[in-house]
């Protein structure tokens, strides 16, 4: 009986050690993949905003179809399910600011990062409705998109 208990404890202990070891390896890879994926999503935001903003600034000639396509990309990107992109432990304190600038505050109690994401999605949808409707409409919609980007980066991104 006594040796049986000991064996069970031993097996449990070994299992805990083993899962945590395997878990760590998997977690590192999963976290790195999530960081890469969310940074890629940011790059795609930026790529599409580049066309819209270039038109707003007068650097690129306004083209309703091209603007509408970029804005619809932006809106579609804002609707992607992000639940796997922001795992616990993928902040800059854990990984270093050279890997990610996402601040731990994103995951802390009282975080408003989710609301900030919603504000961006709303601004992107408004842009989708505006972008094909003339340069002035596009210009107007850029303001709220910019504000929603800054709204999250203000509190939740480490500055360089």
């Amino acid at each position, binding site marked *: 009986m006594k040796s049986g208990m000991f064996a069970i404890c031993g097996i449990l202990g070994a299992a805990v050690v083993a899962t945590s070891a395997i878990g760590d390896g998997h977690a590192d890879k999963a976290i790195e993949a999530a960081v890469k994926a969310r940074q890629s999503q940011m790059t795609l*935001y*930026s*790529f599409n*905003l*580049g066309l819209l*903003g270039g038109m*707003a*600034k*007068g*650097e690129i000639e306004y083209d309703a179809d091209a603007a509408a396509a970029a804005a619809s990309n932006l809106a579609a990107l804002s609707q992607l399910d992000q639940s796997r992109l922001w795992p616990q432990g993928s902040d800059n304190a854990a990984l270093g*600011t050279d890997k990610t600038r996402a601040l731990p505050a994103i995951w802390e109690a009282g975080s408003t990062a989710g609301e900030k994401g919603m504000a961006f999605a709303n601004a992107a949808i408004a842009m989708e409705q505006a972008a094909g409707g003339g340069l002035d409409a596009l210009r107007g919609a*850029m*303001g709220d*998109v*910019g*504000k929603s*980007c*800054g*709204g999250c*980066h*203000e*509190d939740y*991104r*480490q*500055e*360089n």
Partner: protein
Amino acid sequence: MTLSLAMLLASMAAFWILSRPQVLPAEDYQNLVGDLSNGERIFWAAGCSSCHADPMAKGEDKLVLSGGYRIDSPFGAFIAPNISPGSAGIAGWTTYDFANALVAGVSPKGQHIYPSLPYTTYARMNPEDVADLKAFIDSLPVSDVPSRPHELRFPFNIRRGLGLWKRLNLRGDWVVTEVATPQLQRGRYLVEALGHCAECHTPRNIIGGLDTRRWMQGAPNPSGKGDIPAISADKLDWSAGDIAYYLETGFTPDFDSAGGQMAKVVLGTAKLSSEDREAIAAYLKISSLVD
């Protein structure tokens, strides 16, 4: 013995005289009628709410000037006070009191104010704009949140010493002296008298004064994390249009967006007229003191 005592007393007297708080000429602030709409413009251009609103305030709450923003520095931490128009803030201040605080760094009690309030910038403000800003702040909501004291190390916690600091670092003259057009003059006023860009983007000397010879050349972040970039004409390769658009929307030429304290700055500059943003951009494009 008597001689060294006399010398000690003489230097104490010299310190006392040289470190006296110097107030503004009262006649410059008489008969000024505050204009609310210009005051609002000055408020956003001067970035008051970046430090004096609660650090997590959003939207309309940016107009509640309860204070609380913390500036870490080599001298200790400065904590922005409540400047709302209630008893925890600046209730009862006259326009002249307000001007002395903002432009000369002297409180209504006659004490030096720490230069975390960038009066080294606001020293260049016109009295009319000071009065208009006061009128606008008086129209904002009252906050009862008490101001918290700064957390400064000895000897920096001795306010009287600031009198000497001001003698070395507080000047009301322009840094960029050659401005050829009205647009550049306006841009210079917005940057050098209101926007206080230099307070972060210009390096400081060992006693914490701005090293104006290295105007807008970038500086270490006083909080110790990272660097604040150079924005002088010789270092920043953005076009004037890029700068103006950044100040309007927060988007960089690469369509990254402003974050951190610059996101707060952009919320203010977004409320300015496009002429004012273009004037700031035009000024920055000539703001190099390096030949």
